[in-house]
């Protein structure tokens, strides 16, 4: 599992009331999600654990270097109904001719789109159970971070930094962590690498 707390460093992401910055808050969500995933038996790698800002490509590379990984980027929006969470998956795009047999960096997500959709549905269902007003199914959006990731990859966006009290946002941490861990666990038996002859359930995220 590769967990990506978005933004960081000089890029604070979304700003809200009470000085809430997306780049700081998202670290709390990531830390709790890491614990919940480890409790499910997953090995977890973080793209950042402090206030630094790796590039989009560096973050993707953490997942691309591991065969059989799963990538989740965590965001907090400045809009949206407070107390809800949405899962985004890369939309379909034309597949360019590729005779090399290698995965092209700029289109690394394309071979994994179907898997990402399955992962996205599982996680969104779990989020919708815990956060009323969240969508029932995952949505698509051309999120830059997802495009270069060669693994099942989703973005989870939580609303929002615009809450009146910081505690309203932080009260979502345990629920988001649990929903992601259970969603990934439900996805595990569905994860068969593209082109892999392995039977279903034998891959190890």
């Amino acid at each position, binding site marked *: 599992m590769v967990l990506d707390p*978005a*933004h960081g460093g000089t*890029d604070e*992401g*979304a*700003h809200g009331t009470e000085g809430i910055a*997306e780049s700081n808050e998202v670290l709390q969500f990531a830390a709790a999600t890491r614990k919940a995933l480890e409790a499910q038996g997953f090995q977890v790698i973080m793209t950042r654990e402090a206030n630094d800002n790796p590039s*989009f490509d560096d973050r993707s590379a953490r997942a691309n270097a591991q065969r059989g990984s799963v990538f989740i980027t965590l*965001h*907090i*929006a*400045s*809009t*949206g*109904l407070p107390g809800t969470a*949405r899962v*985004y998956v890369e*939309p*379909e*795009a*034309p597949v360019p001719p590729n005779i090399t047999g290698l995965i092209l960096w700029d289109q690394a997500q394309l071979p994994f789109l179907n898997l990402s959709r399955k992962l996205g549905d599982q996680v969104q269902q779990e989020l919708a159970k815990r956060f009323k*007003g969240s969508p029932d199914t995952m*949505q*698509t*959006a*051309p*999120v*830059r*971070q997802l*495009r270069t990731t060669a693994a099942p990859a989703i*973005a989870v*966006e939580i*609303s*929002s930094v615009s809450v009146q009290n910081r505690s309203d946002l932080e009260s979502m941490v345990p629920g988001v962590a649990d929903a992601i861990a259970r969603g990934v666990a439900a996805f595990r038996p569905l994860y068969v690498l593209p082109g892999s002859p392995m039977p279903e359930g034998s891959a190890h995220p």
Partner: protein
Amino acid sequence: MSVKWRVWLSGALLAAVIAAALYFPALRRQVNKAKDITEKTAEQARRELLPVAPPTSGEPKVKVKMFWGSRSQEGALNPVIVELPLSSDPVLRAKQVLNTLLAGPVDAESRTLPPDAALLAFYILPDGTGVADFSDELRTSIPSGIQSEQLAVESIVRTLEANVPQVLRLKILIHGQEVDTLAGHVDLTQAFSVSSKDASGVKLEYPSAPRSLLPAPIEKAVEKVRGVTRR
């Protein structure tokens, strides 16, 4: 120093003070004028150099479908019919509808693009790719987030799809440059499919609000939206 020289020196100093007092207001006006010129950004200068779209008051008014945010469905777009005198030229037509989109609906909460953003240029390549060049404010003033950035791009794409059929796909530039993302999330390195005939762009699947959910007063109010172009 003799008395005579002292008188001469005092007289010269007094004359200098009077001359300075008379010259100071004029100098201050010149400094303020120079300050105004230096504060003019490169972007303002560029806007002034851009050819202004010719007035289209002679064109007949047609019904134009604009896509702003829905107030009844979170994160969805709401098609609104507005009557505008649209040009028959596809490039001018695209500029007119995008400037109307930027000018925004009467209801500010339905806005999808920042009020201070401007369309700097629009052109159509021979392969049907529309290139829209926006000012920096599109990135810096938009609320950061996947949902808000996606809604902004989708409102542009849907509005072009509904009104300028010559545009098959859309490439968005910021101040003449390709950028990685709109405001940290939505990918602007690729072109977006505008027309269903296009097979080479990223296809967006953002939901529109169902017609039954549209608040009727908004639709009528937006018809009063002022002017076709912002500047």
